[in-house]
């Protein structure tokens, strides 16, 4: 950023005096100038990165160190908000929910997307392309629109369940069912996207390997599980990390469905919803910042554990 400014600041000097340019040419080596050009190229990214990621992060961390009450002014409280967060039953309940959700959701998503990708890779008919597009389509629907749609599909008055089961129809967002109701929405939304990633990895495998396997007497199942799956393992790990981070930060779908959930989705349903409500409903921006950072810590630990485990066990896949 500073370099970008410097480049521009030099402009009038350069235009006004040829002598000055000559002098600078001598004093500054070509390497330095090249470095500066490089900085200029990344400046657009760097500025956006600093303004929209680093600066808000720093500001949120700064906020999280203070406590402000309605009846009192802002007081520096150090890490007190973090102590409160990790002993807050609502926050911990939300964290437990998203971890639980991730443990169920990720395997389900993985199995569905892997199975579909393997089938689409193995079967080549005119129908394949169409199927691939249709399975991918939910991902192209914005999450908010998708959630609203499901809200209507789940509706006890207008939904198809009502028409199938009549008055005793189950309500997918009732307190007992909301876990599965949301599981269905998220799987519907993301399985197609993960399928495309796995499918792309599958297309990248050298077909001669299949031929070699067949010559060695492997059947289709063996080709799938002994060759294809191990070779797309890195794509699977990537998906897992995406899914893990996304699930721990679960927000959009439950937030949208809150209005039609008849109270099943509480203000502390997931950590992100809780932080949102603390900030924008109760004006506890300080505590909300602390909650966001605490969630960041949880996500970091979870992803670290996961990457550590998969790195150690990576060998068995190949």
């Amino acid at each position, binding site marked *: 950023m500073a370099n970008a400014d410097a480049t*521009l600041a030099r402009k009038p000097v350069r235009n006004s005096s040829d002598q000055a340019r000559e002098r600078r040419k001598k004093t500054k080596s070509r390497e330095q100038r090249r470095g500066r*050009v490089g900085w*200029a190229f990344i400046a657009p990214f760097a500025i956006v990165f600093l303004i929209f990621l680093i600066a808000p992060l720093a500001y949120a961390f700064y906020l999280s160190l203070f406590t402000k009450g309605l*009846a009192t002014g802002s007081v520096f409280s150090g890490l007190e908000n973090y102590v409160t967060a990790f002993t807050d039953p609502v926050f911990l309940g939300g964290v437990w929910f998203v971890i639980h959700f991730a443990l169920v959701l990720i395997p389900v998503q993985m199995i569905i997307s892997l199975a579909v990708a393997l089938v689409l890779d193995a079967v080549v008919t005119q129908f394949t392309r169409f199927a691939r597009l249709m399975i991918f389509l939910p991902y192209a629907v914005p999450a908010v629109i998708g959630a609203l749609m499901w809200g209507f599909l789940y509706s006890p008055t207008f939904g198809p369940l009502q028409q199938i089961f009549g008055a005793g129809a189950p309500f997918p967002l009732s307190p007992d069912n909301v876990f599965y109701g949301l599981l269905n929405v998220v799987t519907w939304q993301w399985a197609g996207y993960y399928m495309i990633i796995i499918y792309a990895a599958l297309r990248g495998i050298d077909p001669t390997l299949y031929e070699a396997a067949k010559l060695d007497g492997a059947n289709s199942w063996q080709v799938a599980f002994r060759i294809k799956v191990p070779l797309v393992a890195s794509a699977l790990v990537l998906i897992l990390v995406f899914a893990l981070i996304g699930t721990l930060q679960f927000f959009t779908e439950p937030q949208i469905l809150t209005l039609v959930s008849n*109270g099943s989705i509480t*203000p502390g349903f997931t950590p992100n919803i809780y932080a949102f409500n603390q900030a924008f*409903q109760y004006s506890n921006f300080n505590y909300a910042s602390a909650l966001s950072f605490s969630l960041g810590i949880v996500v970091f630990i979870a992803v670290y554990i996961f990457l550590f485990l998969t790195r150690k066990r990576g060998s068995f896949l190949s």
Partner: protein
Amino acid sequence: MKGNTVKKKALVAAISAIALAGLLAACSSNGGGGSASGGTSPKLTGCSNKYVYPNAPQVSVWGWYPNMKLVVDNFNKLHKDVQICWNNVGQGAAEYTKVQTGISAKKGLPDVVMLEADHLATYEIQGALVDLSKYGADKVKSNFSAGAWNDVSGANGTVYGAPIDGGPIALIYRTDVFKKYGITTPPTTWAEYAADAAKVKAAGGPLFGDFGGNVPALTMALQIQKGAVPFTYSSAKPTNIKIDLDDQNSVDVLNYWADLVKNKEVGTADQFTTDYISGVVGGKYATYVSAAWAPGYLTGAGVGKGASSGVWAVAPIPQWNSSDPVQTNWGGSAFSVTSQATDKKLAAEVALGIYADPASLKDGWTKQIIFPLNQSILKSAAFANNKSTFFSGQTANKDVYIPAENAYKGINYSPLTVYYYAQLQAESTKINQGKETGTQAAANLQANLTKYAKSQGFTVTQ
């Protein structure tokens, strides 16, 4: 030659970087239709209305009345010296989220904002509202009843909003359902209400009413009717608060509804949702305990047309003790001037003048969008004798709403409203799910609110 190209590219890159940074700065400095700062005659743009006198100074307003556009046009036509720039940023909670954000960010609030009386203390304690008594509020005071004025006043004669409408609560019911199940007169006590509910249920009829989790303000109003005093707070001593959420009256009301829910005599649906409204239209609920503004909003949602037209009537709210009737209130709004207003005097002129002209008021009350608090309307024969369209020609104002409003004494609201409503909603939901009794819910509320108030720096007495 090559060096030149690189240099040129670097220059282009640098310039675009600067331009981008400038663009970002431009974005952040313009808070999107909020109050403009500086300049003698701020030009507000992005309004939902057109100016009548474009050269007059302008005041930004947020409000959600369904007939707000007409109200704003009427104001602008009548005022050559000031013009309103109006936007609807959401109804109730949706607007409050934006207001709170504006307060916390110290910018982005409009000059004048529509608020319900129960939210005034919450924003007043944060220094976000202007005391209108310094800007001529006394001149309009005589237009309102003592109870109505009390709801918008703080300690020591301060006034934080110009009242527009109130929400006296009454029992809205379906004449077709009552007739079918042999209920000749609407229940006058809560005991009768429960007995009628049981009767309809036994006969295989529809639900008698609804205990919605998402209308905590209504639940609180019903508790207050029985004699509960949830909060005692005065802006004279803003760090002191008395919280009493688990007294016998509060517990009784929660248990009363919990029993009806348990017996499946009333529904548990959140109100104002599509599902709920379709239930109301379809005859799923025999009664609706609600405020005077409800018919207008129900009409807007499509109730009272087609199959559900000509079936509605209204009766006074049931009582706990018929020899000592008590009236209560849900909602009703005021216009407040925010401390972020550029010209507070001008903003106060708008707050005190908007929705106060006869044409706007008449449009509001004939459509039953507002129950006006202005005495000139309340005492007029036209208002009293009006035959309500929604209630099939019933003189609802004279029979039900005017007496209810006249007997209403005002409610002491606290600055904890937003948090309290969220907690009450959560506990009502647990009651509806059968996870908790009213007694447990009240005890939880008392514990949660006490803890929260202390964390916010209040000295709490119980």
